[in-house]
């Protein structure tokens, strides 16, 4: 076993923590035992995935209430990267979110976050968990 990392973070539901969480993602990826190119790509991707997932939890699940907490769990093994973001909000239907319109004439300001997560990770699920919700994202590493 070369890579075996499990990190739990709990933060208030506020966008001011985006930078910190993104940095943690970068640092986790930089420590992985894998080829340099893979490590650099994962560093960038993990920062984006954590940021988008956290913003999703803050804006759509916890309604930006800083009194609410968001729990983040990052697990890396030799085979998989798994990110789980837990919120206590009302939740949303992941399947109801459409793919963005890519045409210059149909451009929308919003609606790219979930598309980005689905593009960077192998699976993205959002489901009920212990009275709240969890956004679970997995990526195969080997």
């Amino acid at each position, binding site marked *: 076993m070369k890579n075996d990392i499990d990190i739990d973070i709990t933060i208030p539901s506020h*966008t001011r923590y985006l930078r910190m969480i993104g940095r943690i993602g970068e640092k986790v990826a930089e420590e992985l035992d894998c080829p340099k190119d893979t490590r650099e790509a994962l560093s*960038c991707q993990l920062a*984006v995935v954590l*940021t988008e997932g956290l*913003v999703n939890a803050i804006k759509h699940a916890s309604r930006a209430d800083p009194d609410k907490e968001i729990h983040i769990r990052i697990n890396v093994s030799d085979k998989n990267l798994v990110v789980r973001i837990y919120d206590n909000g009302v939740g949303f239907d992941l399947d109801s979110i459409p793919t963005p319109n*890519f045409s*210059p004439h149909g451009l929308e300001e919003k609606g790219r976050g979930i598309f*980005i997560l689905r593009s960077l990770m192998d699976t993205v699920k959002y489901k009920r968990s212990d009275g709240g919700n969890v956004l679970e994202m997995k990526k195969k590493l080997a």
Partner: protein
Amino acid sequence: MDIRTEHSEGITVLYIKEDRLDANNSEELKIELRRLFDSGTKDLVIDLKEIHFIDSSGLGVLVSGYKNASTAHGTLKLTDLQSQVKSMFELTRLHRVFEIFTSVDDALQSYR
């Protein structure tokens, strides 16, 4: 948000002096872009040289500015995208929407 504004040959140039454009600070840029186009700005260049991280909220604010420019029959061009920013534009196909230049000088040259 730290933004420096310059005017050159009738073009407004915004230099974003931040290392991130994300859900925590992008609303300020959105308000500034709307204010500029509402107050008569037609052609705008945004220099992203110092931005090393952008998320979907940051991209959305640039799309909002692009739509403001179109409504005002003006233009919004971008310059100097760093590697993460470039990747995010490509992932979301926005590199096909925006005119993107390697430097502010090149963007200004495109108006001559």
